[in-house]
């Protein structure tokens, strides 16, 4: 399988703190890649560099064959970003939010409306499309947040903790959506603090801590490094790699 994303020695420093330190990894086409790590490990900074909004201090990334530092416009045509925050306009309806982001991505008004309707159907919000997002439940807002990321018709989707603080029904709906997207040919980079999510969804997992990538492999491979893959949980793997000390 070809690599759709290849990060090479990616580094970023903020005010004397090495947030990301020589991180290298690849994500294969149509793979769901989990990026795990405790708070402050450097996951979000890595995603910001991969998604072209933060320039790396060192190293580079190729996405779909284009460099994020030199060909960022081409990269942006191929990615969709669902940030950790609810990056949307609560005063507007879900439909208006999606149409706006679609048009900003270059779609015509007609294309954006059509794609917005399809996407809202996909995330189970078609019947509430015209309601202001501020009236939605937390889970519905999370689904709108994901739907917006799909409005640029991306080949690579970044999902940064997309299931924080939502009910099991919404979480399951998001899992199904992610799996369906992968089935349609999309590549997904997924970060989460819920280990069972990563275990269920991800083909491969990278574990980051203190800005460095400290483990990389399929869930079963990582479990085997720690104990019996049949009985070891991903949480045990995670704690084994990152330690038990509290983080900020």
């Amino acid at each position, binding site marked *: 399988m070809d690599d759709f994303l290849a990060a090479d020695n990616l580094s970023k420093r903020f005010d004397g703190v090495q947030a990301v330190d020589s991180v290298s990894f690849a994500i294969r086409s149509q793979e769901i890649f989990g990026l795990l790590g405790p708070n402050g490990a450097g996951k979000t900074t890595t995603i910001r560099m991969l998604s072209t909004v933060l320039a790396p201090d060192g190293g580079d990334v190729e996405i779909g064959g284009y460099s994020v530092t030199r060909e960022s416009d081409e990269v942006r045509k191929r990615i969709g970003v669902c940030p950790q925050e609810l990056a949307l306009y609560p005063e507007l309806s879900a439909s*208006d939010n999606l149409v706006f982001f679609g048009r900003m991505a270059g779609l015509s008004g007609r294309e954006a409306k059509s794609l917005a309707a399809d996407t809202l159907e996909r995330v189970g919000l078609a019947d509430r499309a015209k309601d202001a997002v501020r009236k939605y439940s937390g889970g519905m807002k999370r689904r709108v947040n994901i739907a917006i990321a799909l409005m640029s018709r991306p080949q690579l989707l970044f999902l940064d903790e997309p299931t924080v603080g939502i009910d099991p029904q919404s979480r399951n709906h998001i899992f199904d959506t992610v799996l369906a997207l992968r089935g349609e040919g999309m590549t997904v980079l997924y970060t989460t603090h819920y280990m069972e999510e990563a275990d269920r969804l991800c083909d491969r997992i990278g574990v980051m801590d203190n800005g460095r990538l400290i483990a990389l492999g399929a869930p079963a491979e990582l479990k085997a490094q720690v104990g019996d893959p049949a009985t070891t949980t991903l949480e045990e793997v995670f704690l084994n790699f990152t330690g038990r000390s509290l983080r900020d």
Partner: protein
Amino acid sequence: MRLLVRQAFILSAKDMRVFVRDWPGMAFALILPLVFVFGFSLAFSGVGPDDERLRLAVATEESAAEESAGGLSRQTLDALAASPETDVREWDAGEAAAAVEDGSLDGYVLFPGDFTQRVLSGGGAEIRVMLAGGAPPETEAALRGLASAVAGRIGAISLIAQGTAELAGPAALDLAELGRLAEAPPLISFSIERVGSREAFNASNFTLPGYLTMFVFFIAAMSAEAIARERQTQTLERLLANGARRPAIIFGKMLASLYRGFLQLAVLWPAGIFAFSIDFGVSPVAVIGVSVMMVVAAAAFGVMLASLVGSVKSATSAAVFTSLTLAPLGGCWWPLFVAPEWLQTLGLFTPHGWANDAFNKLMLFGAQGADVAANLAVLALFAAAFLAVALLRFRSAPAT
């Protein structure tokens, strides 16, 4: 370039959609200024003088009994008091000098105690105009005018007195007769006619442009808070990752501020005309031109502020602080021309000051469009400077 313009317009249209759904924000932008204008126009409506007579202060030294009993200065004062054009207040010479000294009186005309005697004797008398150090020029002009008129009139009587004395002897002088002469109509007289009616003083002609300027800048400054919030919720980063250009975001945000400012103009100016009877003066086009340039400067100010602040909280503080500081400095709360010179000088460092100066010239003093060309140019320079800072400093993500 085409993509940038397209994205800027799409972004600004979205911001306007958000704005029109924000009813408290709309009320703050459009209703609150009218409440302020109504209240302060009412408060300032009593500022103009009810009594339009020329106010004069006159003092007499009381060293000679005939001056108070019916001498020439007494008769002059009585004649002035009878005039419908003047409001003469009599002072004791000592009290008048003290009042000038302590600043409660700008000046007065002083008749010497032996005024009549000196006039009748032909020895010459001196009417003195006493002025405070910082007396306004109009007070000096009025008192000089009074002194000159009295001197001219009494001078003529003095000549008659001298002639009478020379021909018939000093005993023939009759003070009462001279008094009648003083009261007789002069050979050459003048009259004052008021043509038409004087327009009532309308305080809204300066309160409305002042509060319009303040609220246009306030709303533009508050856009910094909205931008900081978008930065915090990662919406701006998402837009960038989605293919939006950084200048498109800045110009889009500025365009949205322009729309909001134009909406404020479209509501507040007509409300001023129909509800507060404001007068655009002889050059309404210039008033519109100044309004538009003021909105442009305010919109650029908003995006500059957004580029300088970090958190939502600091954006709110900066918006409120700058609005409440620049408004009084720039003559939004009172006309700068009545402010002390140091405040007028400070006002020149604010776009508010240049906008209000132009509005005052056009709406209060009958200036033509060409008279505010410098104001328009300075407002354009402010806008360019604000925009340059915004383009240099604008961040899409919170400071890390």
